[in-house]
């Protein structure tokens, strides 16, 4: 995980639920590379075709409300989205995205500071997001240490892998 991320901004409004991120008709699709073709089909139709690795999503309140589907953050990870930033998140979406190792930041006030196409600079440890076009800055409370650990490990799969390995390793006593 890099501590400082820079990327082109895509903006979303408030209450974008998981149906608008990946619609119910794609729920039987489990290949993330297939899913990414349909991400935001309802909320932001031009996104899937044009988004590039490192791009940053800036949303309003309650991003990812609705179902528990992990398809949504999986598709975003498959695109290689640099960070997902929002005024606030729905809880399962937030957990899912962090578990997949995607930097996910709750920064109240961030949506108002960005327009589509701006460049954002996110300093994860400093707790700061800057709009490089306007100079606007938004701060956010430090990411809790157990979540930073998860992100540093590259997600929950890697973290549990290490835990299980450590538990299985001869203790050396």
């Amino acid at each position, binding site marked *: 995980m890099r501590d400082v991320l820079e990327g082109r901004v895509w903006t979303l409004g408030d*209450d974008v*639920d998981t*149906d*608008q991120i990946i619609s119910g008709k794609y*729920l039987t699709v489990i290949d993330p590379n297939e899913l990414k073709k349909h991400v935001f089909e*309802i909320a932001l139709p031009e996104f899937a075709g044009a988004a590039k690795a490192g791009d940053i999503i800036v949303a309003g309140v*309650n991003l990812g409300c609705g179902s528990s589907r992990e398809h949504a953050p999986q598709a975003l990870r498959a695109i290689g989205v640099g960070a997902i930033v929002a005024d606030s998140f729905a809880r399962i979406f937030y957990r899912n995205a962090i578990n997949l190792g995607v930097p996910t930041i709750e920064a109240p006030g961030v949506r108002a500071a960005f327009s589509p196409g701006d460049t954002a600079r996110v300093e994860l440890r400093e707790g700061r997001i800057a709009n490089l076009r306007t100079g606007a800055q938004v701060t956010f409370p430090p990411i809790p240490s*157990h979540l930073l650990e998860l992100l540093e490990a590259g997600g929950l799969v890697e973290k549990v892998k290490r835990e*299980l390995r450590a538990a299985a390793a001869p203790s050396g006593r």
Partner: protein
Amino acid sequence: MSAAAGGGMTLTEKVLARAGGLERVVPGQIIDGRVDLAMMHEQGAQTVGPFHEMGAAKVWDPDRVVIAIDHWVPASTEGAAVLHRILRQFAKEQGLPHFYDVGNHGICHQILAEHGWVVPGDLAVGTDSHTNMLGAMGAVAAGIGPTEMAAVLALGKLWLKVPPTVRVRVRGRLGKGVYAKDLVLRILGEIKTTGATYKAVEFTGPTIERLSMSERFTLCNMTTEMGAKCGVMAPDATTYAFLEKIAKHPMHPIQPDPDARYERTLEVDVDGMPPMVACPYSPDNVRPLPDVVREHVKVDQVFLGSCTNARIDDLREGAGLMKGRKVADGVRFIVSPASTSIYKQALDEGLIDVFTDAGAVFTNSSCSACFGGNMGILAPGEVCASSSNRNFPGRMGAKDARIYLLSPAATVAAAVRGELADPREFL
């Protein structure tokens, strides 16, 4: 266990303290919670990959894992068939005995409820956002994603941040033609879809104490729409009677401390409350139904189903209104029981006849039209009256289709009239 310092604990705090093996917890604290029950539906298929990637060999406790397929039953697409097969193979390979497969199926939350899989004091997690429903048992039940479920299956635990609790205290009597669904819509209209994000909602008060388990499930189910981590109710005689013969493991009847600290308390008085409706495109866009009825909202489809409202009492109430009436011309009325046992009960009680004689289609028990991915899908511009829990854009099909959320009785009223109607006129 009322702690001396800093006041007592809410129900959620006490259940999480138990799960974390701690005397006391406070909101904001992170705990490692031991899981009493893990539930997966089709999304669980996405758990299998990460489970193996983690290098996990065995599920921590096969007796505490329930798999219930419900979104596409029987499989309606090749993709769904593959998901089912992945789960069957995983269950076989891991020796997971509690698989509710085609023929013994139902909506996952209903399966957990009617088979006594979640009992007071439990920490339960499921790969579905409406796992909250099981909080009605006096448990903390929450939805998680499939990768997180893989970690739960491997380790039998997960980290949780202890949420602050919003208390909802309800008094008064629900009038005739007004139901638990109307009550939860009213509460949602006040709390809003973000009002309880990351929080627990604890329902209490004399009205709640009088509710049946089925009605309690309806309330806790829709705490998901409030953004809540969980929705809970203290267990009482109704809970114990419901679980008496079916509880799958020992109960830990936990009550909130009398001096528990709540983030806030919402007081609700239901005396004189009319039926309610959540209008497009948000479950918190709630208005009194009579106001919306005046606007003559024509419907193309009506759905009586989902984990929120497709239990036997919902079907009985609906059939009571349906009897001797017809579904309006040009309206498709889909009735889908929440489980196979409810299906059988409806058959025995003649309810299926009532609905089909009236011109409704009575389907197999599943999520059915609720989520726009299997059947009962809406075309662009169509309008649906539904007893389910979500009406976001695209939820039941086309992005601009409009969904109105109502009680089961009000869905029948809409089916008969061909437009939204007040069920009290039909009683």
